[in-house]
């Protein structure tokens, strides 16, 4: 059992605020991912939770207890570092058992706990090795094992996969997700990789410039971004943006002018008036080639990935990315017409905030348990 509350957390580094008042609640057994561009404060926020960085103001509480002034070791957390931070002069077993040794746990009991963690991570064969004799993926597992041995109330992961190669990253991602099921623990995970965020999180916290832009489930961020930053940050390739003029607006929807005719986007009009300029946002995968579509563009680059094809289009000053199916026969310089389903479109006001969609996407509240089979050990 472990919940975490952040209450108006501020971090000030010699006059520069890097965390500007963050509120967050992490529920028991939740997998929360902090994501954002580099320098957004996600790692600092995690280090503040860990106790490696002091908190300028605000409260951090675990299970209702304020822990601002509790040392890192006494918070009952374990952290996995990006660099793994294994102790180079100790064997795998000693690395994993170091916290127990410091806590003066008897040798036999220590060994038992280390072995139990090693079994989960398939490290039994490597217990006598030194870290330098391990591969990147093995080092990563030892670092995770070291955290498991501590039996923490919350696991903290600081970009744990970014030093691994792409194939191993995918494998470790799945292993971590299963580990979460198996340990049934609260986990907080920092990454700049939105695929890691989308695939592992129950809840994603999008940060920018020390401010929380949005907190929500992966599908909520994808389908209902609260502002233009989140819309552009989540999803790959990036969402297309186009400044358009409002023709009419009411509570049911907003009519906007497109080059090939008007269209009605089903969002709450709010205070939008005819003549206003809004930004239309459409994801590349929601654009489709359509000979009678209202939009046109000339192909400048084609990226064929086999399964899908990304078309980079130009029309006047505007640029579009369109993800079509893998077999498009178009060539560079072709003029194409395309369209989209207005229900998938987003509208953003001048200050970047999104107009609220009339209908919530059905997958927004989907639970992580509905995405994953029970973990390997439970299945056995």
């Amino acid at each position, binding site marked *: 059992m472990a919940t975490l509350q952040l209450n108006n957390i501020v971090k000030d580094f010699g006059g520069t605020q890097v965390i500007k008042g963050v509120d967050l609640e992490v529920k028991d057994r939740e997998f929360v991912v902090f994501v954002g561009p580099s320098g957004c404060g996600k790692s600092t926020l995690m280090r503040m939770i*860990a106790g*490696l960085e002091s908190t300028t103001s605000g409260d951090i509480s675990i299970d209702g207890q304020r822990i601002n002034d509790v*040392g*890192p*070791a*006494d918070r009952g*957390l*374990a*952290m996995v*570092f*990006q*660099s793994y*931070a*294994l*102790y*180079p*002069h100790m064997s795998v077993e000693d690395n994993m058992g*170091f*916290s127990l040794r*410091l*806590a003066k746990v008897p040798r036999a009991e220590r060994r038992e706990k280390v072995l139990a963690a090693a079994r989960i991570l398939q490290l039994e064969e490597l217990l006598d090795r030194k870290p330098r004799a391990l591969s990147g993926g093995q080092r990563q597992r030892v670092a995770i094992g*070291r955290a498991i041995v*501590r039996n923490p109330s919350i696991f903290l992961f600081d970009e744990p996969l970014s030093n691994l190669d792409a194939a191993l990253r995918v494998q470790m991602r799945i292993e971590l997700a299963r580990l979460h099921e198996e340990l049934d623990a609260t986990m907080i995970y920092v990454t700049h990789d939105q695929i890691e965020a989308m695939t592992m999180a129950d809840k994603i916290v999008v940060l920018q410039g020390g401010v929380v832009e949005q907190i929500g489930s992966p599908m909520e961020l994808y389908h209902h971004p609260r502002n233009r930053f989140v819309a552009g940050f989540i999803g790959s390739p990036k969402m297309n943006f186009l400044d358009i003029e409002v023709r009419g607006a009411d509570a049911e929807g907003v009519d906007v002018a497109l080059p090939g005719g008007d269209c009605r986007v089903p969002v709450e009009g709010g205070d939008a008036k005819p003549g206003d300029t809004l930004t239309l946002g459409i994801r590349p995968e929601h654009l489709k080639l359509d000979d009678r579509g209202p939009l046109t563009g000339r192909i400048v680059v084609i990226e064929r990935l086999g399964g899908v094809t990304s078309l980079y289009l130009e029309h006047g000053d505007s640029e579009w990315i369109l993800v079509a199916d893998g077999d498009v026969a178009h060539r560079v310089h072709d003029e194409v017409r395309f369209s989209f389903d207005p229900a998938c479109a987003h509208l953003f006001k001048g200050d970047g905030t999104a107009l609220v969609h009339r209908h919530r996407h059905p997958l927004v509240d989907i639970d992580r348990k509905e995405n994953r089979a029970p973990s390997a050990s439970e299945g056995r």
Partner: protein
Amino acid sequence: MNPSMTKKLLLTLLAWGIALIVFFPIFWMVLTGFKTEGEAVATPPSLFFEPTLAGYNTVMARADYLKFALNSIVISFGSTLLALLVAIPAAYSMAFLPTKRTRGTLLWMLSTKMLPPVGVLMPVYLLFRDMGLLDSQLGLIVVYMLMNLPIVVWMLYTFFKDIPKDILEAGRMDGAGTLQEVLYLLLPLTLPGIASTGLLSVILSWNEAFWSLNLTTSDAAPLTAFIASFSSPEGLFWAKLSAASTLAIAPILIFGWMTQKQMVRGLTFGAVK
């Protein structure tokens, strides 16, 4: 021969040349120690002669070499241990908890090495006299410790700075307090560096002459004083002086030879990854 081979050959020749120039005085000293007083001052100097132990015999008969040697050992190792004891916490705080003035403090510490020691001879002498430290091993241990402290702190600081902060933070997350962090993580990881720093400090202390000559007379006199006692008022006897000098530097030379691997490893520690 290709250009890189030529370059290598020239560099090797240069290295040998420099090594010979550096080593020649020592070689000549050892050689002179085995000559008679007459041969020692002969011009042109003779390279081939009949070696004699006469110089060594006189030296050993006239002074208690072992007593001086023991003083040297106690004083240089004692001062080194004391210096490490003081410098490790200092370097730790500078490397891991730096402030705006850390850099300045380090430079200031080093700048004290630019002061000629004779400038503080008077106050140190008077202090020692009043505290009863004249001609005592403890007195020299303290002075040598202070003398070497800037270099020892500076070297340890650079070694400590090479240790990734993550490792110490991981230790802190695992429950290590500052002392455990230093004992279980920092010291084992920087052992090569600490060893070479210690070796350097031992060598510097062993070879120090100014303070030992001025602050000791007999009881605590190290080997530098032993050598000096042979530059007698009745004139310089080169063969005897050389024999005494050879005896004085032999232990540290052998010690340096045995630990040279460690020295080089420590001094290039961090530079080669």
